[in-house]
């Protein structure tokens, strides 16, 4: 018994010494070789960052959510989209133009070959489009297998016939059959659309149409998993800039340059490590301290605090996304257009831009946002706060008392802040709002079930096409038309604009549609959030394309700048 207290003391001393030693130690152990984790291997075993190749630095990125699934035709988290963007190279890409702040912004007008060395798009006699893509003969998958037209054919077939969501998008460019995708020879692919849509060329830049290794996937297909959706949940099968070194959903992902990539010499880094750091404040601290090179998803208020820090750079570029408050016309009194107009004019638009988004947003000003092509600024300007007009509309509605519930997501702090400001303003005109904050799953279910009278939601259209946006969000019967609004004249205009290549026709038709949308007070369009990112001071090469997913190919950093 006499020895036991001594033993306890010795043990305590040992632990304290270990902690002190740990605190004083600054040595970083050397990394060792890691095992590959592409489609040819099973679950990866290691998660260390890549060894620098030559003098190129490795890049560390902190993302706010986890990389849940990296199957490219499944809806997944934002972080997962960043990974698949790095793994799958499409036929085309946007030409990047360097902005004053160093951001590489993808052009809406100019596309260049990516996996395709050259291409041609012509109008067909049947009123459609025919694209011929000549593939690069030096493009290879990570295992050295050449990328051929058969691989792209397989990819497109998979989107049309497989269980993913991409098949829902293809009608926008007039593709609904595998017969429209044709292999001419090993390196020549034809894609024929049966309509003429400006989105056709833009779609060819999307990562979801990036080449997939047909031979590998067919070898791993099973009766239960015919299209290898489950097989690819944690593996890559692409031929893009990077290959998957390791994948740990809660820790992170390590990407290393594809050794067989056709443009390897222009890859500006030796690899990318993506880490999940759920708390935005910690992401900001880590980029300030230099432990990470890029952080996304920093809230606007925190961005304003970072603005004075010389150690970081803040990139902020307008997007065409829209944050809106929807009004469900299936729930009275929101079926009354004057009630909706009252609500629309009572929303404090400028206050939302100033006090919720802290200037990191532009006015949405309609379903076609102020940053989107064919936006009509005259109509957009009418989405203004006017409490007198709001009160008048409410009086004209004949509805005595308006009590409504406004639903927002628990995971979106900006929406919650906006809800409070909206609630206050609506109260001033006699509309009582109760704000309900719901977890994501509950919010999604109730939104889909049409149970929410008022809700704040957001949308971003890949390809940034106004008619795509209008069609998905606001035409009759669309499953994401949560406001349950239906106007046949509007639908006809949207249909016309969707399949017109004439800019003047599109502008005119879009303007008419926007007017109808405003007259019917379908939404209160709140803001169009900028896409923001924070990098270390000496980090360059951040790019932004149609998908708003950060690309890493050109990212690099220097020790001093």
């Amino acid at each position: 018994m006499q020895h036991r207290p001594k033993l306890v003391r010795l043990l305590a001393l040992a632990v304290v010494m270990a902690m002190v030693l740990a605190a004083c130690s600054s040595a970083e152990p050397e990394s060792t070789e890691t095992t590959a984790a592409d489609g040819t291997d099973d679950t990866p075993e290691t998660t260390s960052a890549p060894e620098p190749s030559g003098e190129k630095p490795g890049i560390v990125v902190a993302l706010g959510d986890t990389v849940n699934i990296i199957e490219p035709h499944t809806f997944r988290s934002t972080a997962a989209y960043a990974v698949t963007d790095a793994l799958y190279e499409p036929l085309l890409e946007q030409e990047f133009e360097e902005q004053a702040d160093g951001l590489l912004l993808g052009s809406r007008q100019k596309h260049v070959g990516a996996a395709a060395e050259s291409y041609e798009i012509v109008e067909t006699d049947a009123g459609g489009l025919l694209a011929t893509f000549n593939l690069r003969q030096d493009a290879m998958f990570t295992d050295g297998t050449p990328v051929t037209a058969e691989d792209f054919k397989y990819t497109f077939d998979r989107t049309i016939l497989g269980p993913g969501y991409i098949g829902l998008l293809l009608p926008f460019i007039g593709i609904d059959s595998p017969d429209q995708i044709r292999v001419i020879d090993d390196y020549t692919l034809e894609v024929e659309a049966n309509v003429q849509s400006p989105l056709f060329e833009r779609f060819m830049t999307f990562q979801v149409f990036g080449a997939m290794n047909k031979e590998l996937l067919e070898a791993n297909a099973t009766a239960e998993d015919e299209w290898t959706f489950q097989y690819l949940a944690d593996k890559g099968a692409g031929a893009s800039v990077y290959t998957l070194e390791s994948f740990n959903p809660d820790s992170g992902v390590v990407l290393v340059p594809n050794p067989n990539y056709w443009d390897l010499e222009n890859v500006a880094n030796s690899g990318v490590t993506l880490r999940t750091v759920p708390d935005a404040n910690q992401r900001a601290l880590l980029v300030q301290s230099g432990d990470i090179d890029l952080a996304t998803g920093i809230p606007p208020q925190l961005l304003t605090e970072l603005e004075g820090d010389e150690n970081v750079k803040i990139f902020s570029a307008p997007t065409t996304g829209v944050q809106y408050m929807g009004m469900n016309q299936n729930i009275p009194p929101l079926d009354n257009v004057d009630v909706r107009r009252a609500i629309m004019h009572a929303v404090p638009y400028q206050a939302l831009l100033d006090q919720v988004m802290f200037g990191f947003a532009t006015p949405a000003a309609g379903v076609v946002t102020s940053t989107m092509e064919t936006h009509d600024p005259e109509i957009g300007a009418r989405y203004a706060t006017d409490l007198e007009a709001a009160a008048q509309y409410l009086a004209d509605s004949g509805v005595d008392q308006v009590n409504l519930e406004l639903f927002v997501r628990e995971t979106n702090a900006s929406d919650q802040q906006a809800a409070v400001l909206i609630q206050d303003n609506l109260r001033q005109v006699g509309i009582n709002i109760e704000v309900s904050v719901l977890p994501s799953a509950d919010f999604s279910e109730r939104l889909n079930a049409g149970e929410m009278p008022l809700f704040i939601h957001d949308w971003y259209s890949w390809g940034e096409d106004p008619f795509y946006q209008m069609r998905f969000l606001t035409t009759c019967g669309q499953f994401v038309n949560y406001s349950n609004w239906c106007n046949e004249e509007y639908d006809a205009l949207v249909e016309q604009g969707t399949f017109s290549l004439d800019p003047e026709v599109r502008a005119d038709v879009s303007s008419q549609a926007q007017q109808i949308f405003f007259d019917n007070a379908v939404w209160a369009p709140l803001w169009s959030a900028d896409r923001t990112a924070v990098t270390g001071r000496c980090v360059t090469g951040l790019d932004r394309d149609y998908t708003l997913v950060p690309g890493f190919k050109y990212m690099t950093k220097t020790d001093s700048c």
Partner: protein
Amino acid sequence: MWRYLGKRFLISFGAVLGIVVIVFFIVRVLPGDAAVVRAGPYASPDTIQEIRDRYGLSDPIGQQFVTYLSELARGNMGTSIRTDQPVTGEILQRLPASLELAFYAVLMATLIGLPIGIAAAARPESWVDRAARVFAVLGSSMALFWLGLLLIYFLFYRLRWFPGPLDRLGITTTPPEPITGFFTIDAALRGQFDVVIEAFRYLALPVLTLGFVLAAPILKMVRASMIKTLASDHVRTARSLGIPHRQIIWKDGFRNALIPVTTAIGIVFGYMLGGNIIVEFLFSWPGVGRYAYNAIQNNDLEALQGFVITVGILYVGLNVIIDLLYAWIDPRIRLGGKMAT
């Protein structure tokens, strides 16, 4: 003793079965449709139904339960609708991170709470006792996230004494080949002492955060239990016989106070078993706490079930271990006498 243990195991098995049944039905009344979340914004009715069919969510509840039980008997806790991965594998992958954090946090809490509690009890109403009580109040009322934020800001960002909240090891460090899943132990067993030190450095801030807060209940229990024991007849007798104070404290006081202290430490450890969501969130710790949080947000039923059942099994196992400790501490239990309460 063996009859006692056998009875404990039977009760434990029944408890686990009860947990499985209750959890299965409770998670299904949670609001939110997992299929809708998985389908995303392009959630057509057909897509949602296809997802429901794929994950068996359209089957009658009874059939789902039978299927789940039969799979669980084979160690299969289903497939996560969020990641499309087997839940069993995902939990086993994350559990060591949470257990390692829990182990060191409880160890630190015990190393803080135990000696301070004993010292306070040995010198009632002294400055030591008063300081201990202040510490206990501070620890009990301290918000975990606030303490964690302070530690990160000052010890990482300002002073750079410890690394940032970026996982269990540095970006360029390869984790040791797993044996226990504890990086500190596995690296030591593999002779990678630099990795041991690095693992401790990354553990330091979350362990400090948890240890400080968890020390409070341990300290209070130790102090209260010791005071009661030191006021007992047998201790008074020992004093009157001139037995040294130190011996009375350790042999007569502490040993007899160990049962409730063991209970307190067990409760604290049990609380930690499910992972601490706040700390794991703050420190980007890849444990089961964050896994459970993501499962709740996405109404990932299988993941949620798997998490609760795993924690339940661990908790039941922990209680069995505590019962064994009781038997070691209290000879009356070991010899089949009156059970300690």
